[in-house]
């Protein structure tokens, strides 16, 4: 049966391997080039120096490699492409073309038939996904090193182990949908929609809650110092300016002129665009600073610390693998009683 599964799906597998190969042909030279620039320009050394301002070097690097950003959607799509081309047709096409009547009346049971096909197709997708995930993680290292956060969408979900789990999930989602809708093209379309839905749901509603977020409250005056010390790669989930009682004074952080003007006459008198540098008179705080201190405004940041990156990767990996296993069990049950 392994031979049959290979013979049936070899075109997809060969095309998949070719696509991954083409990707490698592009990523290896450009990745080497980026890594070289990263070191030779001094950006790497700068970024690893605490407190150094690397803005200029970073901008130069970004300008040089901005063109590669078109790859991000491609990397995002890669898992679902496996789902659409490897997964969705696996059962749907057999039903579409009527060959299920041949396949399911031979000497082996349907669970074994399905199990072998899954083994071959998921195995091939796994090989592709591992290669791609490794390549992309390696390739994007210089880009990520200067990024605000490794948790950012478009970074977290393209690197490490999660793309592998997405791929396995996408393939089994395709197979399961195919076993329900029984037609290849609708199954392919629904796989895309279903995958995008689950990914977005997890990305925006589930991922922030893997571990209880930490909260850091700092005085608004001289703001940012504590956060900066924690390194640039924390994941800020939300940031607000709060008053003494903890009520939100300015959603999203910073000052809200109207809020201050309503409470401090000096601020209102000064107007929203004071002439001259704010707080320029030494010894006497400017009206805004005085008002902020008077109201006891503080900045509250809810965040996930940078060191949780791998914990989050493995949690998300586990979630998608568990979903994939659930889909596999469903599909075997479904195929047993399909008619």
């Amino acid at each position, binding site marked *: 049966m392994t031979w049959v599964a290979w013979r049936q799906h070899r075109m997809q597998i060969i095309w998949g391997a070719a696509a991954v190969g083409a990707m490698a042909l592009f990523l290896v030279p450009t990745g080497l080039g980026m890594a070289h620039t990263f070191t030779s320009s001094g950006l790497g050394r700068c970024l690893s120096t605490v407190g150094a301002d690397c803005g200029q070097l970073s901008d130069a690097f970004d300008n040089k490699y901005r063109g590669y950003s078109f790859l991000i959607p491609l990397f995002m799509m890669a898992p679902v492409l496996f789902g659409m081309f490897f997964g969705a047709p696996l059962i749907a096409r057999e039903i579409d*073309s009527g060959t299920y009547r*041949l396949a399911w009346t031979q000497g082996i049971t349907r669970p074994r038939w399905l199990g072998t096909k899954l083994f071959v197709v998921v195995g091939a997708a796994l090989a592709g996904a591992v290669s791609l995930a490794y390549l992309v993680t390696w390739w994007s290292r210089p880009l990520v090193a200067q990024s605000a956060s490794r948790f950012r969408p478009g970074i977290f979900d393209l690197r490490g182990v999660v793309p592998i789990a997405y791929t396995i999930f996408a393939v089994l989602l395709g197979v399961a949908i195919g076993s329900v809708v029984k037609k290849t093209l609708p199954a392919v379309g629904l796989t895309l929609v279903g995958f995008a839905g689950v990914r977005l749901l997890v990305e925006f509603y589930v991922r922030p809650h893997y571990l209880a977020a930490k909260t850091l409250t700092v005085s608004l005056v001289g703001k940012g110092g504590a956060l900066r010390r924690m390194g640039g790669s924390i994941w800020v989930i939300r940031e607000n300016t709060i008053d003494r009682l903890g009520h939100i004074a300015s959603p999203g952080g910073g000052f809200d002129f109207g809020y201050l003007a309503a409470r401090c006459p000096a601020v209102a008198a000064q107007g929203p665009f004071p002439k001259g540098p704010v707080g320029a008179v030494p010894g006497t705080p400017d009206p805004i600073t005085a008002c902020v201190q008077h109201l006891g405004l503080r900045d509250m940041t809810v965040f996930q610390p940078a060191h949780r990156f791998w914990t989050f990767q493995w949690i998300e990996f586990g979630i998608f693998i568990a979903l994939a296993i659930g889909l596999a069990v469903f599909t075997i049950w479904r195929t047993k009683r399909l008619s």
Partner: protein
Amino acid sequence: MSVALEASGLGKRYGKRWALEHCSFELPTGSIAGLVGPNGAGKTTLLHIAVGLLEQTNGSIRILGEQPGSASVLPRVGFVAQEMPLYKSFTVDEMISFGAHTNVTFDLPLARHRMEHFEIPLDQRAGSLSGGQRAQLALALAFAKHPDILLLDEPLASLDPLARREFLKILMEGIADSGATVVLSSHLLTDLERVCDHMMVLARGRFRLIADTNEILKNHKVLIGPRERAGAISGVEQVLQQTTTDRQATLLVRTNGPIIDPAWMVNQASLEDVVLSYLDSRSATDGPEPELHAIRTEVAR
């Protein structure tokens, strides 16, 4: 007598429509049964239930004494589905390898030999075979399992008349020595009467007649006689069909004894006439047929 295929109160419903209803029968081992009925009668539904592709809504069915589709019975059942589905991109030889890889016992040399015999090149794509070649390949795959029961769903539909004859000949030769039971469905009776020793007549999801063909011929007669005496005739159980002219009546009847009334000329009925009369006479009413039971017990005897 051992039974190869038996059903009791079998029914299959699609939504609100019953594709198959109240089906009860026993098909003896070694019989060659023709499953006859118009398109949409439920033939494919019955065969798909028998091989485990479909699940019945109610009633029970046993094939070779086992649950259809179970791991132990699958290797013993050969099935050729309607339109003979094959993997179009596979070569003939790859289709044969498919059979060898998906069956515990598979007679690879037999399948290859048959292809050679019919001059079908092993490296030709299955998708480019002619209707006749397709049928031969599908049959070879089924034969190579050496099945104890072989079910074929409209195998002749895609063949021209000459190829039909050839196909039936090959089929009969192939199973002659094995003693396998065969169920062959067709919407054309003429295809089947040459080879079948049992007739299963299905219309609108119900069996109208299930009997040994010899019994059918023995128990059905065509009577020609005076019109005014077409009432009760001794030895006639039921009049199935009646055509009358001014003076003469021609009756197709089922008998329950010898017809001794000299007013009637007794002729042999053709199998086709009998089967068609069962398809026609019951098509108006879909009530239960008590007389069917009598015939069935005869088959089972």
